[in-house]
């Protein structure tokens, strides 16, 4: 059929489609969250009845106890320490460059890709009192994480020539086996 010259070309109103889309958008906004979950992971050892015996066996030489009291003051093995000095003390304890008898012992462990490596036997213990603030506890955990991240990074650079973050999964596991993070509560 021929279109007459008088027909007005009408467009379908797309405004109602926009309304439907708006409704879907609003529904979606209400039911969801832009939740970004930032956290650090800790693997706790399985509940063991001989844990106390094992701790005594390792000896106080290999235990680095960080205590937090009610005022959120830190002390290491009984001596008062400032938060700023804690990281350096942890690194000194684990790395023990001068083989001091007061700091952690090392044992030779066979690690994949690297062969026999001296690995520290040090264990970090974090103890808190009932009224210690949770943020102080997280702060100490944070300092421990940073200390180990620094040590692992330096080790990875020395041994593989790569920064820890840039290494692949297998290399990361080797570095983790050489600088193990043992935390007990």
């Amino acid at each position, binding site marked *: 059929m021929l279109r007459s*010259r008088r027909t007005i070309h009408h*467009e379908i*109103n*797309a*405004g109602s*489609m*926009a309304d439907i*889309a*708006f409704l*879907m*958008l609003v529904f*979606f*906004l209400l*039911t*969801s*969250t*832009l*939740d*970004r*979950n*930032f*956290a*650090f*992971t*800790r*693997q*706790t*050892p*399985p*509940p063991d009845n001989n844990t106390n015996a094992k701790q005594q066996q390792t000896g106080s030489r290999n235990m680095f106890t960080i205590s937090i009291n009610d005022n959120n003051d830190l002390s290491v093995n009984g001596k008062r320490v400032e938060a700023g000095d804690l990281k350096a003390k942890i690194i000194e304890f684990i790395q023990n460059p001068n083989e001091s008898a007061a700091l952690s012992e090392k044992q030779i462990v066979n690690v994949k890709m690297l062969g026999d490596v001296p690995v520290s036997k040090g264990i970090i213990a974090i103890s*808190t*009192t*009932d*009224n*210690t*603030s*949770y*943020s102080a*506890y*997280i*702060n100490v*955990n*944070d300092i421990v*994480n*940073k200390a180990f*991240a620094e040590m692992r990074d330096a080790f990875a650079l020395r041994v593989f020539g790569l920064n820890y973050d840039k290494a692949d999964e297998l290399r990361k596991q080797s570095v983790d086996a050489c600088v193990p993070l043992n935390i007990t*509560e």
Partner: protein
Amino acid sequence: MFRNRRTRIIPSISTAPLTDIIFILLFFFMVTSTIRMNTTHVKVKLPNAQSVEKKKDEETVCYIYIGEPMGNVTAGDGGMAVQVNDQVVPPADVLKLVTAERTKLPKYKQDKFIVSLKIHKDAKMKLVKQVKEQLKTAGALQIDYSGTHTLN
């Protein structure tokens, strides 16, 4: 046709591209957001930490919130209440609930059971230790401590 030199036809604005814009916005939000599983009954202000990393939500199964009670929730020890997934519970019931959550999973996933702890920065360690002891007994060995990422 209807035109001469003096009249001008102003074309009507087509609203079809508007729907495209709305759909793009919708898809953006669909991709970047997560469906909220738990309604919050406690207010949690997370502590600051530098060594926290972004965690993928699909791996976590159980959320434990410790914070200031909102609405008609009664405060427990130290002014904070404990919420497991989406119900507020007295602190001693955490063991029961977490074990129930863990046994719901198939066997091969039970070892990779992760609990995410979102605890208020002013909470006292007494309550936190109580919850953690129960998690240990329940066999939840991998724990994510949440915090807001800071640069210093």
